[in-house]
């Protein structure tokens, strides 16, 4: 091992010594002087093709951002299943590549491996498959048992439409604003689906903003919840959800599919897959398919989606004023969505009888970050009353938020496509 290291150190030193002369040789070859010889010409070519020669400072910055995402995922466990692939993708996508014609290395070079892997993002295939997996792993029984909680999922979608107005006000084109708005739904796959159709050039920024804010749910939501919900309201106990029959569970995806697809056909690729996945789970006769959809398949798609979204985020596109605006809009929209859900829950309580009141904290779960925001609601509820478990109740607005944001994306597509 020591010998091996010594040989390579000597070779490295030799290379460093040759390097300055090599540049001179490269210049002389370029000027038509053929006396450099094949060796120097080969080495010069090698040097020109290396990442060091094509390096730009902003690419280094992007690589650092990628490393920060990986650090956040490993050290603080912020959505590691997403941030590790995206962070690695950012590094891969920002390795300086030679500007050779016909090269098939980068994500935008037709024929390269990354190009074909990215096809699933560009054409909205991966988000639909992710929804299939989500459908196969989600239990809608809390929603079926207390359907009125779906209103909270609808109310929280105000984040999407407020962001739409905000994005237009900040100077984005209307179709771009439509894509950016979906960040307000806190739903990564839906945001990718909408931006791949409406504003492909902003896909990287939108996806990273959406996933970053999803990862920051435990940081962003609690202060807003504490600000808007009084201590008395935080301890409201809700009636336990009623038992849901198997038939109701089977009927839910079928009715949901027909209803949402007829009203908002644009959301069909997402909601069709979501309800299909749920039917696989609830039918009880396709357990193998449901198991594959919620485990292996969703894992494979998550890897490909994260990696290629990261790799598509090149420095030239990402390090721009519009990215900063997108991140700003994302933060505001997330706060508005959370506040929208909480305030709507408070408004609902004005019309409900004493025993039927809802704990306004669950309104924050109306954003569709499943199940992160439901988990945040549970933790906040426990802080006020250690025996008040809100998780099951919060899951209802949480999954209806997924449906709501997909419907909103479908509406945006139908307006702009």
């Amino acid at each position, binding site marked *: 091992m020591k010998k091996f290291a010594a040989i390579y150190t000597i070779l490295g030193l030799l290379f460093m010594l040759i390097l300055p002369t090599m540049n001179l040789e490269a210049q002389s070859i370029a000027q038509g002087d053929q006396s450099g010889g094949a060796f120097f010409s080969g080495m010069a070519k090698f040097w020109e093709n290396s990442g060091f020669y094509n390096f730009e400072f902003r690419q280094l910055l992007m690589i650092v951002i990628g490393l920060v995402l990986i650090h956040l995922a490993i050290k603080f466990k912020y959505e590691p299943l997403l941030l590790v692939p995206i962070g690695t993708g950012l590094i891969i996508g920002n390795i300086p590549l030679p500007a050779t014609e016909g090269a098939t290395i980068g994500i935008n070079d037709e024929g390269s491996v990354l190009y074909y892997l990215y096809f699933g993002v560009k054409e909205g295939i991966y988000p639909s498959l992710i929804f299939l997996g989500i459908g196969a792993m989600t239990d809608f029984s809390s929603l079926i048992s207390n359907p009125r909680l779906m209103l909270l999922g*609808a109310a929280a979608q105000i984040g*999407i439409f407020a962001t739409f107005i905000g994005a237009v006000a900040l100077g984005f084109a209307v179709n771009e604003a439509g894509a950016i708005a979906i960040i307000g739904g806190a739903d990564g796959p839906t945001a990718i689906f909408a931006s791949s159709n409406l504003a492909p050039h902003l896909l990287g920024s939108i996806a990273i903003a959406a996933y970053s804010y999803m990862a920051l749910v435990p940081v962003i939501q609690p202060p807003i919840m504490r600000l808007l919900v009084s201590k008395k309201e935080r301890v409201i106990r809700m009636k336990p*959800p009623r038992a849901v029959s198997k038939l109701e569970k089977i009927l839910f995806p079928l009715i949901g599919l027909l209803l949402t697809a007829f*009203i908002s056909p644009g959301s069909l690729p997402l909601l069709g897959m979501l309800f299909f996945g749920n039917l696989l789970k609830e039918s009880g006769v396709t357990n193998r398919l449901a198991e594959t959809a919620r485990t292996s398949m969703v894992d494979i798609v998550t890897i490909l989606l994260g990696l290629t979204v990261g790799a598509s985020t090149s420095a030239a596109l990402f390090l721009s004023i519009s990215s900063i605006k997108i991140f700003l809009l994302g933060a505001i929209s997330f706060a508005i969505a959370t506040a929208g859900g909480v305030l709507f829950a408070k408004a609902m309580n004005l019309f409900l009888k004493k025993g039927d009141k809802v704990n306004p904290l669950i309104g924050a779960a109306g954003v569709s970050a499943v199940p992160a925001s439901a988990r945040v609601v549970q933790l906040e509820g426990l802080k006020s009353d250690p025996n008040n478990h809100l998780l099951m109740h919060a899951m209802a607005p949480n999954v209806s938020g997924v*449906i709501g944001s997909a419907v909103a994306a479908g509406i945006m597509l139908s*307006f*702009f496509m």
Partner: protein
Amino acid sequence: MTFLIDIENWNWADIYVIAGVGYSVVFLVLVLLILVYKLIPKILNIRIKKRLKKEGKEIDSTASEQYVAGEVNAAIATALMLYFNEQHDEESNIITIKRVARTYSPWSSKIYGVRNVLSR
């Protein structure tokens, strides 16, 4: 790409209309789902009541009887599972030692499996 609104020459009224209509449609979809899901248990209950009537059983149709909390079901299911898992076969309670005669084989011989201590 063709757009429903003129993306070059839009005015603010278009933007507010899109936001308003979009938000209303999201509510509409979810309100319809709520209505359907308020209705389905009632329809299913009618079916159950009809079946029970046919079988000649009495029906208690008070709301409190129809509402069964999920956690009650979970408790019943856990109790049943524990009950059935801890059930044993009926046994005679007579403990006997059954002698089994095995023919000798060097493969199972104890002599080859233990160390022979040397003795003078």
